[in-house]
């Protein structure tokens, strides 16, 4: 038996199929994975993401600490509640984890890291926090729900006070705020509008049931994976890990090399790679032949070399198979993927595949 969130019993009552995810017993789907996917693209769905690890970092030097710890620069965060997506790198530039960090006050930042990497993340954070006198507190008292979809915000705010609802609806993208005793952030992992809400663990079941009663669909990790892949978002452990750097993981945009004086962990290694040019890159693939792309399939780039898919699935929105693949930097606009010994054709495309319910790539190629 794995670890369980405060919603575990409700998931089983709702008929969820439970799987192990990073040591946690989590719902992978309730009824139909495709149905849950479409609910989020077309109206609203709720996900239990309480397995993710919320860490509060407090201290006078917390900003300087994070400017060393993270590849993206928290120096850019000035508005309270503003969030930043970043990688946390090791000395050789490999990705220890990807995370979101919120600027709360000048002595307090809040970080959300992956469940499967919790132990090593906390050890790494604590190791480096010591020299900055930063206090590291894991918030195991909080549950976290992601309410996502075009109707998600309007439905969720009906659970708040009138003033709270107004504040929540006015939140900018990638900003969070404490509202009515909850932490409500306009963030997500689906490519749709919505909130991620941290709330006292004891309130989670009630809020979930109230959302269901409003027609917000219970959604599992299966739909979460197809949604994030369509949205062009990386999954730690699939698309990058400690042996891969952000430049070969489609995450160069999250590395802040300016100011040049900011000495973040992994900077030296990344600069060397950047100078000579990363030999590999992460691209999107759209399968042109019939079949389904999966992770770890061989990618053949004619005249250039080989690569590998890192995530792959059937896209319910495009009704085609899509993937991320790590391929040689010289790869052009077409590759072949080895699926069970057959070489199938795939177009190289720029993610995201889907955003805000709409296809973002042209699927009008031979089906």
């Amino acid at each position, binding site marked *: 038996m794995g670890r369980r969130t405060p919603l575990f019993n409700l998931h089983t009552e709702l008929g969820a199929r439970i799987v192990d995810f990073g040591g946690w017993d989590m719902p*992978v*789907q309730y009824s*139909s*994975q*495709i*149905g849950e*996917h479409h609910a989020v693209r077309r109206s609203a769905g709720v996900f239990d993401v309480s397995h993710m690890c919320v860490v509060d970092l407090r201290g006078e030097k917390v900003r300087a600490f994070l400017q060393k710890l993270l590849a993206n620069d928290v120096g850019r965060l000035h508005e309270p509640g503003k969030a930043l997506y970043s990688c946390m790198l090791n000395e050789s530039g490999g990705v220890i984890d990807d995370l979101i960090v919120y600027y709360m006050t000048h002595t307090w930042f809040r970080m959300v890291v992956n469940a499967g990497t919790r132990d090593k993340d906390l050890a790494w954070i604590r190791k480096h926090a010591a020299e900055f006198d930063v206090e590291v507190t894991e918030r195991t008292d909080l549950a976290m729900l992601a309410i996502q979809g075009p109707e998600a915000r309007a439905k969720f705010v009906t659970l708040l006070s009138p003033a709270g609802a107004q504040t929540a609806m006015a939140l900018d993208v990638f900003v969070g705020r404490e509202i009515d005793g909850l932490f409500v952030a306009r963030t997500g992992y689906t490519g749709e509008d919505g909130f991620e809400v941290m709330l006292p663990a004891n309130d989670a079941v009630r809020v979930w049931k109230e959302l269901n009663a409003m027609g917000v669909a219970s959604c599992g990790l*299966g739909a979460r994976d*197809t949604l994030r892949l369509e949205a062009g978002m990386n999954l730690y452990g699939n698309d990058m890990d400690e042996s891969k750097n952000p430049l070969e993981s489609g995450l160069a945009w999250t590395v802040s090399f300016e100011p040049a004086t900011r000495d973040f962990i992994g900077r030296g290694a990344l600069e060397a790679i950047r100078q000579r040019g990363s030999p590999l890159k992460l691209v999107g693939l759209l399968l042109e032949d*019939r*079949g*389904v792309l*999966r992770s770890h399939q061989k990618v053949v780039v004619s005249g250039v070399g080989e690569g590998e898919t890192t995530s792959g*699935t*059937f896209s*319910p929105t495009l009704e085609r*198979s899509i993937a991320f693949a790590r391929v040689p930097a010289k790869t052009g606009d077409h590759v072949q993927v080895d699926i*069970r010994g057959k070489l199938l054709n795939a177009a190289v495309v720029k993610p995201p595949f889907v955003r805000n319910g709409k296809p973002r790539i042209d699927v009008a190629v031979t089906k």
Partner: protein
Amino acid sequence: MSNVPADLKYTRTHEWVRDLKDGTVEIGITDHAQHALGDLVFVEVPEVGRQVGAGEPVAVVESVKAASDVYSPIAGEVTANNAELGTTPELINQDAFGAGWLMRLKPANAAVLSELMSPTEYQDVLKAEGA
């Protein structure tokens, strides 16, 4: 508990076999199997005329989550495949024992049909798997 029709034979790997009484059999995956796989999005069926051995992988069923091989319960020659599945793989989710059939086979030796699992034996397999 999954639906296990009484007039079919079964395998431990969740295929079903229907004796069509015309010298051929129809083969598919069970309701339990389709439920475990989830929404099916791609199915690859064997070519007509192909000679298959017992236990040989003959078809692939892919859901959003994963790809899974389908094994031929018996040896024989493929006499038909379900082309409908090419455009509507969800037929397997909707009707695993009917419209979602995968292939028809002319058994090399019809006598082996009786060696396949009975519905009761298959129910026991499902129970043992905690289904």
